[in-house]
């Protein structure tokens, strides 16, 4: 069953000085299945945050429909089953961590005992167990991201929507957020998150959608999207004085270490025999496969010259 379903969504903006429409999203159709982790990837300004704001109901589409759990996404009652973390979240900095979570729990009509239990539980879960009594203005960026994640989970939601949850976090923080997302999946929840940190996506996502300049360029399991066969090999050798190779080409030379690239397996074998004969010391042979990043860069090349900087800025503003 589709938990989140966008059909033919389009969204445009007008810049301040122009009456001309600029399209942020064009005919976006996307479906997120129950219980999966869905990564929504794209460069800055691709339209990821706009898509998420549309799904949450913060902005409205020019055309198309959005359904969550099979119902019209505009139905306010649906949000009892949704958790949301915005990008680079700003919270009421005069509240302490406990007050902040308690306030959000009140919005779901939870009783005081249940609120207290959930707040403490979530503070522990996001690693802020002993920081709950500090005002949010004294939290670091990583701590704010974690308390933001906690408020998104306060209602134990079935669908969790996270906008750039790893943004600005150090490696430990990213690992913790990744673990929380995996834990949500293990509990049968659906997670839809946007990111431009592709290594995280490759590690944890069941499926990804790739948005390029407002158009969905690819959607599916990562293995289906990227060619997994080896594209070329990189060979590092020490002590090779000769610049001439029987095949391939030298990519770089630093002191006495040479990095060479060959395109086929036969060429690799020839090169290794050549090195053996010349007495070069083999350091490493690295097969290069296509990654999600390669795919994204390939799809994103050739930015739309018609798309004004202001529109891209609007999407990218939270990143800075």
């Amino acid at each position: 069953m589709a938990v989140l379903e966008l059909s033919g969504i389009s969204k445009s903006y007008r810049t301040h000085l122009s009456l001309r429409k600029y399209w942020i999203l064009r005919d976006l159709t996307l479906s997120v299945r129950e219980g999966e982790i869905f990564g929504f990837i794209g460069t800055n300004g691709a339209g990821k945050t706009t898509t998420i704001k549309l799904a949450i109901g913060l902005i409205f589409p020019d055309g198309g429909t959005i359904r969550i759990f099979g119902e019209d996404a505009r139905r306010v009652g649906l949000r009892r089953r949704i958790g949301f973390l915005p990008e680079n979240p700003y919270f009421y900095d005069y509240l302490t961590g406990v007050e902040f979570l308690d306030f959000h729990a009140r919005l779901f009509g939870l009783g005081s005992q249940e609120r207290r239990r959930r707040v403490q539980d979530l503070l522990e879960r996001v690693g802020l167990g002993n920081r709950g009594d500090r005002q949010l203005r004294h939290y670091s960026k990583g701590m704010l991201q974690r308390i933001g994640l906690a408020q998104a989970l306060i209602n134990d939601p079935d669908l969790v929507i996270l906008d750039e949850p790893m943004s600005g976090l150090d490696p430990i923080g990213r690992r913790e957020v990744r673990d929380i997302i995996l834990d949500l999946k293990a509990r049968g929840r659906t997670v839809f998150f946007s990111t431009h940190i592709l290594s995280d996506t490759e590690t944890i996502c069941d499926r990804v959608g790739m948005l390029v300049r407002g158009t969905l360029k690819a959607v599916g399991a990562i293995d289906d999207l990227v060619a997994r066969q080896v594209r070329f090999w990189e060979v590092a050798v020490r002590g090779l004085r000769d610049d001439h190779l029987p095949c391939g080409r030298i990519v770089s030379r630093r002191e006495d270490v040479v990095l060479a690239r060959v395109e086929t397996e036969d060429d690799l074998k020839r090169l290794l025999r050549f090195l053996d004969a010349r007495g070069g010391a083999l350091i490493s042979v690295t097969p290069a496969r296509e990654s999600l990043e390669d795919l994204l860069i390939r799809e994103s090349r050739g930015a739309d010259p018609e798309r004004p900087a202001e529109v891209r800025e609007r999407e990218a503003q939270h990143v800075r």
Partner: protein
Amino acid sequence: MFARVAAIALNTFREAIRNRILYTLLVFAVAMISFAQILSLLTVGSEEKIIKDFGLASIDIFGVLTSVFIGIGLVSGEIERRTVYTLLAKPIHRFEFVLGKYGGLMITLLVNTTVMALWFFLVLIVKGMFDPRLVLAVLLLYFQFLLITAIAVLFSCLSSPILSSVLTLALYIIGHLLWSLDLLKEKLTSPVGKTACAALYYLLPNLQNFDIKGQVVHGLPIDPAVPAFATVYLVLYGSAVLLGACAVFQNKELQ
């Protein structure tokens, strides 16, 4: 619905009482009320009138400033700081958010006005000048603050904080000068002009309805219909303005 509105109102109140602007205004108001005693020494025979007039005016001005400067940021501030994103992702209607913000400032103004009034009354009681009708005058001032706050919230949904504060303060001043529109209507000969004046007279907020300072200070009788009319006016006009604010916010794109 009530629990959600109450939660937002409580949080808004908490934000206000942790806001330094509120305390600055409150300290200034208390200082001005105290200053009235010194000022009254400079006059002969009208010490009581000066203290009462100055005290009520201080409560009026600082209450209005609180309404405007906190009111204009209630909605637009939440949008600018993007704190509204997480709130509206929860199961709350947008009108509940607007009402909650308004409710929070209602409580803040009640506390604020009460503190100023208590200090004012204490000064008068010590001097043996207290008049129970002053309580009614302060209550009507509070009603006026509620109406101005509703207007500030409407502007806050429509435009930036700076423009909202200018427009709200402008309406506060116009609201006390509406009698001049009535005078102008009498002097005009063109029926179009007369109709325009009449329309503006009834459309713009008439804050004179909440002003009985003159009668109280000078010991003049107060028509019993005045407080009742002021209450009905606040409920009707205030509800219409808040309804407008909710309608604007309902369709607002939160970029």
